[in-house]
């Protein structure tokens, strides 16, 4: 076994020992511990757990690569996936914590005095969480198969086994403290290579500053140089976007509101002791998330620069300006073996030409240079994973990145599986089907539900339905258009009633789902071509949740106006959740 493989096994193995150790230490013994960790989690610990819960395999592995290729257009993810925490901290978390029950559908059911509303909410929750979790299991499988060189299925089974142990045993309590550990592993794995690369490229070790610094040994700013080389190769400027303003706007709204409406994120704020902890905890969560999210765009820009600079060794268009294929660096050879990086010598000159051959204005120039199409395809997912290799960092850094990728995927998967299981055991069984069950039976139901959910998630990860790539739009769009508006109205309005909430949720849900299916096709072929000319108001399926959310609000308010207002005790309930102090009237 070579050194890299040994180190990787060591890093991943040690992290697993840590997770299982925590699970044994934090076994849950009541439903309160199983669902909300006994409401005893310190706000800083909860902030870390929320950050790990939130940052998935996609954030860790894909986001920087996505930004590298989208440039300014990638900003929607940066703002969209952080701005939601402001909404959470001010509009949802403190009041839901005051309310003090276990699940999101439970709040919706009580506030709208309706089992139907609770059921609709459970359906939304299960759909959102399952689509999300399939992607996580896939991420676990990919990291395992790339770094530990086991096949995808073995990787998946190992990942499922680990989650099974600590989620079934520890419930929310076990998940919370493993997530704290997972956050530490993943943030270290993300920032260490970024610091090294920033240092090499600009001489400044802080990626956020290096991003706006001059390239070492020159007096040209990194971003200016990057704009220059990518436009020379026919791409749009890195700091310019290709998305329309209205679409950028709508996608950012859908992602922000979707973040605030994701059940596995909201429920994290049920685990802290007090209302004031829910507020501060949202701040800590965003702080820990921002550590990765402000580094990611720097990593993206530096990776794009390094990649282009590696291939384009001399002046654009000069006969010896491109890298000779036979002289390519080691990391390219390694990733070629995975199929995620590919070279095809279209003009037969033995050199790699990497440029934008989809740009009609650039074609003439390319022909002049004797280029015959782009010859290098790079999967955006490899940039973060290949980063330490590109920067020629020591093997232990590569091993750490592998452990970090697995931590990111496992922590999110566990959080999702928990809300699925609590939706089933607490909202479906205890709340609707078998209200009379004892706490012990409910706890057992929860454990069985989480076990079954892991199996389903594993299956989905191994046999991803064709739509896995499209589910991000789904999960966020649905959370934004169904759950977020009814929770918000349930707190900030005393007038929105049962009929309004149900009609609002359903119209937001049906509209958003319908739009996405129409353009992207999920179980059916897309009905309409997914091109900007066909979009409603120029808004892509990724951003349509924003419109669904507005629709939900309008329908809910209108229906509430023409039907009977909520009963008095509900209006008191709303008043009560608005203030932190527990009054005797509420007990």
């Amino acid at each position, binding site marked *: 076994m070579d050194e890299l493989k040994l180190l990787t096994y060591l890093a991943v193995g040690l992290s697993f020992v840590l997770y299982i150790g925590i699970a044994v230490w934090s076994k849950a013994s009541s439903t309160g511990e199983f669902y909300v960790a006994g409401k005893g989690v310190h706000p800083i610990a909860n902030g870390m757990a929320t950050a790990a819960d939130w940052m998935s395999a996609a954030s860790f592995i894909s986001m920087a690569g996505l930004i590298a290729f989208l440039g300014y257009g990638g*900003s929607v993810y940066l*703002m969209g996936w952080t*701005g939601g925490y*402001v909404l959470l901290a001010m509009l949802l978390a403190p009041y839901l914590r005051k309310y003090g029950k276990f699940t999101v559908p439970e709040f919706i059911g009580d506030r709208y005095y309706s089992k139907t509303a609770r059921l609709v909410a459970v359906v939304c929750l299960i759909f959102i969480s399952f689509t999300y979790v399939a992607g996580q299991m896939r991420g676990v499988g990919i990291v395992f198969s790339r770094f530990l060189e086991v096949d995808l299925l073995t990787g998946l089974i190992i990942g499922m086994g680990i989650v099974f142990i600590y989620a079934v045993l520890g419930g929310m309590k076990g998940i919370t403290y493993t997530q704290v550990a997972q956050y530490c592993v993943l943030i270290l794995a993300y920032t260490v290579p970024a610091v090294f690369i920033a240092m090499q490229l600009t001489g400044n070790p802080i990626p956020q500053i290096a991003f706006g610094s001059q390239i070492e040994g020159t007096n040209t700013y990194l971003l*200016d140089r990057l704009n220059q080389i990518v436009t020379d190769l026919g791409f749009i400027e890195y700091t310019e976007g290709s998305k329309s303003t209205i679409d950028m706007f709508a996608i*950012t709204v859908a992602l922000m509101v979707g973040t605030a409406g994701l059940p596995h994120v909201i429920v994290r704020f049920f685990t802290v002791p007090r209302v004031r902890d829910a*507020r*501060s905890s949202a701040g800590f969560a965003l702080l820990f998330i921002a550590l990765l999210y402000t580094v990611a765009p720097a990593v993206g820009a530096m990776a794009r620069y390094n990649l282009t600079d590696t291939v384009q060794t001399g002046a654009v268009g000069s006969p010896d300006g491109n890298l000779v294929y036979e002289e390519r660096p080691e990391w390219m050879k390694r990733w070629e073996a995975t199929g995620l990086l590919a070279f095809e010598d279209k003009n037969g000159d033995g050199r790699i030409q990497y440029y934008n051959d989809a740009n009609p204005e650039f074609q003439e120039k390319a022909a002049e240079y004797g280029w015959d199409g782009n010859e290098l395809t790079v999967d955006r997912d490899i940039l973060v994973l290949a980063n330490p290799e590109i920067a020629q960092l020591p093997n232990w850094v590569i091993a750490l990145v592998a452990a970090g990728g697995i931590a990111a995927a496992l922590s999110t998967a566990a959080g999702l599986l928990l809300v699925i299981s609590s939706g089933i055991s607490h909202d479906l069984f205890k709340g609707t089907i078998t209200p009379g069950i004892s706490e012990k039976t409910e706890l057992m139901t929860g454990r069985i539900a989480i076990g079954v959910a892991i199996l389903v998630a594993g299956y989905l990860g191994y046999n991803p339905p064709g739509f896995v790539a499209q589910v991000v739009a789904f999960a966020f769009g649905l959370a934004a258009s169904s759950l977020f508006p009814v929770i918000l109205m349930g707190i900030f309005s005393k007038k929105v009633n049962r009929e309004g909430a149900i009609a609002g949720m359903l119209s937001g849900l049906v509209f958003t789902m319908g739009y996405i299916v129409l353009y992207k096709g999920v179980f059916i072929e897309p009905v309409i071509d997914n091109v900007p000319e066909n979009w409603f108001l120029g808004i892509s399926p990724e951003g349509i949740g924003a419109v669904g959310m507005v629709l939900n609000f309008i329908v809910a308010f209108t229906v509430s106006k023409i039907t009977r207002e909520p009963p008095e005790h509900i209006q008191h309930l709303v008043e009560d959740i608005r*203030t*932190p102090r527990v009054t005797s009237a509420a007990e």
Partner: protein
Amino acid sequence: MSGNEGNANDAYWKANVTHIIVSLVIWFVVSYGFGILLVDPLNAIEFGGFKLGFWFAQQGAIYVFLILIAVYAIRMNALDRHHGVDEQ
């Protein structure tokens, strides 16, 4: 619940909602405003090695979000005590 307590709670809630509205206006301006709607004019301004609009979209907005939550959390603790609705 007595009438007085109701009034006190109303005042607390009003102060809370006002703070939220001000925060969300700032939240909107730095992200949707500076990062998206006004990005082109702001990009004409250089900020170190960044174009300012681009910097807000990829860095600045996130820093402002953090400050907003921190200020809200601290202000609300004081407001809770002031209105006598803090957790005992």
